C-alpha cells in the first residue's frame, strides 16, 4: 500500500515548468531515491509532497491525507530534511533537538539522537560553528526526532564526508527496516545505488526510468570497449553478428548481450587486426552508465521537440 503517492504531478512557477509529469509511490519500509540532474524537479516534487505548495494538476497523498489541507494531522507523522538550512545557527545540536522534541508527543530521547547521528562530541557547539556535514546530520536528527512514519530527505548526503555518509546510510536503512516510508533525493548515483530499494530517475520534470538499482543497470544489452579511433566497425559487426558503433572517437559500443562468446569474438577480432584493447566493460553496468544512457536519450528527444516552455 502506498504511504507516499504522487500521480501525474505538475507544478509550474509562473511560466516555468518545474515538474511536468511525475508519478511516484513509496510503500512502508521502502526507500525510494529520486535522482536526476540539478533542475530536474526533484526538490519541487518532494516539497509538494511535504505540503509546501499545491500541485497545479495531478494529486499528492501522504498517509492517505492531503499534505496541504491536512497539514496539522500530517505534521506529527512526517519528518522533513530540507535541501538546505532549516536549523537555527545560534542553537547547539542539543538545544535544537530539545526544542524540536517538545513539538512531538512521543519524541526520541535527545541523547539517543545525538548518538545516532554521531553528534555527541559536538552537542554543545552552536550549529553555525559545525562543519557542513555535521549540520546536515543535525538536520537529519531534527527530521527524525519525532519518530516519523514518513521521511522526506532532500539531499541528505550533500556535503557530507565519507564517514558521515556511512552514518546517514545506516540511519536511512534502519528507519526503513522499522517500517517507515523514506523518499530521498540525490544527484549522486553511488549514493542511490547503496541505499535505495527503488530508484526513480527524473529529468526535465519527468520520470524517465524507474526500478530497483539492479534492474536499471542490467537492462542494457551491450559491450563497451575502447580501442584506436577509426577501426573498421563494419567488419567487426560482421564478425560478431551485432551492430557496432563508435560512440565517441576511440570508444565503441556493441549492441549485443555480453556473453563470453561475444567477448571472445571481440578480442579475437582485435588480435587478428593487431589492435590494442584499452578498456572493456560488459555485463553489469554501473548505475552511472544506465543513468547517462537514459538521460542522454531523453536529451536527444528533447532537442527534436520544439516550443516547450522550460
Amino acid at each position, binding site marked *: *500500500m502506498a*504511504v507516499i503517492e504522487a500521480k501525474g504531478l505538475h507544478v509550474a512557477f509562473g511560466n516555468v515548468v518545474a515538474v511536468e509529469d511525475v508519478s511516484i509511490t513509496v510503500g*512502508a519500509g521502502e526507500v525510494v531515491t529520486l535522482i536526476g540532474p540539478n533542475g530536474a524537479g526533484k526538490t519541487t516534487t518532494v516539497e509538494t509532497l*511535504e*505540503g*509546501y505548495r499545491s500541485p497545479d494538476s495531478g494529486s499528492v*497523498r501522504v*498517509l*492517505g*491525507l492531503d499534505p496541504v489541507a*491536512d*497539514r*496539522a*494531522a500530517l*505534521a*506529527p*507523522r*512526517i519528518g*522533513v530534511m*530540507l535541501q*538546505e*538550512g*532549516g*536549523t*537555527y*545557527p*545560534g*542553537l547547539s545540536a542539543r*538545544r535544537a533537538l*530539545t*526544542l*524540536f522534541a*517538545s*513539538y*512531538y*508527543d*512521543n519524541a526520541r530521547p535527545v541523547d539517543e539522537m545525538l548518538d545516532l547521528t554521531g553528534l555527541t562530541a559536538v552537542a554543545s557547539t552552536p550549529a553555525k560553528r559545525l562543519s557542513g556535514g555535521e549540520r546536515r546530520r543535525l538536520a537529519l536528527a*531534527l527530521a527524525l526526532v*519525532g*519518530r516519523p*512514519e514518513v521521511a522526506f530527505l532532500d539531499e541528505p548526503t550533500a556535503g557530507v564526508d565519507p564517514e558521515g555518509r556511512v552514518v546517514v546510510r545506516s540511519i536511512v536503512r534502519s528507519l526503513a527496516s*522499522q*517500517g*517507515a*516510508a523514506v523518499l530521498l533525493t540525490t544527484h549522486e548515483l553511488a549514493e542511490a545505488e547503496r541505499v535505495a530499494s527503488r530508484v526513480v530517475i527524473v529529468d526535465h520534470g519527468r520520470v524517465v526510468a524507474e526500478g530497483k538499482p539492479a534492474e536499471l543497470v542490467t537492462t542494457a544489452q551491450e559491450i563497451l570497449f575502447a580501442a584506436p579511433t577509426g577501426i573498421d566497425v563494419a567488419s567487426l559487426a560482421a564478425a560478431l553478428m551485432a551492430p557496432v558503433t563508435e560512440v565517441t572517437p576511440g570508444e565503441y559500443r556493441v549492441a549485443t548481450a555480453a556473453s563470453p562468446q561475444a567477448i571472445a569474438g571481440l578480442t579475437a577480432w582485435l588480435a587478428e587486426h593487431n589492435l590494442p584493447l584499452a578498456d572493456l566493460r560488459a555485463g553489469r553496468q554501473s548505475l552511472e552508465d544506465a543513468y547517462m544512457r537514459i538521460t542522454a536519450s531523453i536529451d536527444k528527444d528533447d532537442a527534436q521537440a520544439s516550443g516547450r516552455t522550460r
Partner: protein
Amino acid sequence: MTVTVTPSDEAGTGRSGTGRLRSGRALRAQTVEEIRMTLEQGERLLVTFVIPILGLVLFSTVPIVTTGTPKRVDFYAPSVLALAVVSTAMVNLAIATGFERSWGVLKRLGTTPLGSATLLGAKVLSVLAVEVVQVIVLGGIAVALGWRPGAGAGVAVAGELLGTVAFSGIGFLLAGTLRAEVTLAVANGLYVVMLGISGIMFPIAKLGAFAHVARLLPAGALVDALRPALTSGAHASLEAWLTLAVWAVLAPGAAVAAFSFE
C-alpha cells in the same frame, strides 16, 4: 489507506487531548528558547537595554535638552519605556524573524507540529517577557534618578500593550516581506528615526510644523499616550490613543496579508 507504523493516538485528527497537551508544551519550550536567543546576543541587547539605559541616564542627568518638565527624568522615563517597546517588538522581532526566514527555519517549522499559531504566540509572549524585564530595569533606574510615576500606571500598561501590537505588526511585516539584510537595515533605521523625531529624545513640539507628522508615527503616538499617564498633572491625548489604535490594526493586518514563510 492510512498506514500506521508507530501507533499514534491522534492519527488523522491532530486535535485530541494529547494534541492540546503537546501544543502547551511546545509553546512553553518555544517561548523560553525565543527569550534565551534574544537575551544571549550582544547586538540585540544593544538596542533593547544598552541604548535606552545610556540615553536615560545621560539625558536625565546632563542638561542637553530643555524638556519643559520639573525634573528631566520625568520626561525621559516615559520616553525610554516607549523605546523599550520599539526596540523589542519591532527591531528585535523583525531582525530575528527575518533571519529565521532566510535560514529556512520558518519553512522547516512549517512541517513540524508546532504550527504557525503557536510560533506566533511564542514570539509575542517572548516579546512581552523581554518588555517586562525592560520596564523593571529602566523603571528602576528612572526611580533611582528621582522619577515618581503618576497615577496612570494601568493606563501606561494598556499603552505599552497597544504599542506592542502595533510595533510587532511592523516587525512581522518587515521580516515577512524583505530580505533579512534589508530588514536589519530598515528596522535599525526606523529605530534611529523614531528615536530622533518621535518625542523620545526631545519634546515633539520642538519639531515645529513637522510635529503633526511626527505625532502620526506610531512611536510619537505611543510616547504621547504614555507621557500623561506616567507624569502627574498632564492629561491624556485622545488623538495619540486613536493613532496608536489605528497602527495596532493596520500593521498586523498588513503583516498577515503579506507575510511569506519562504
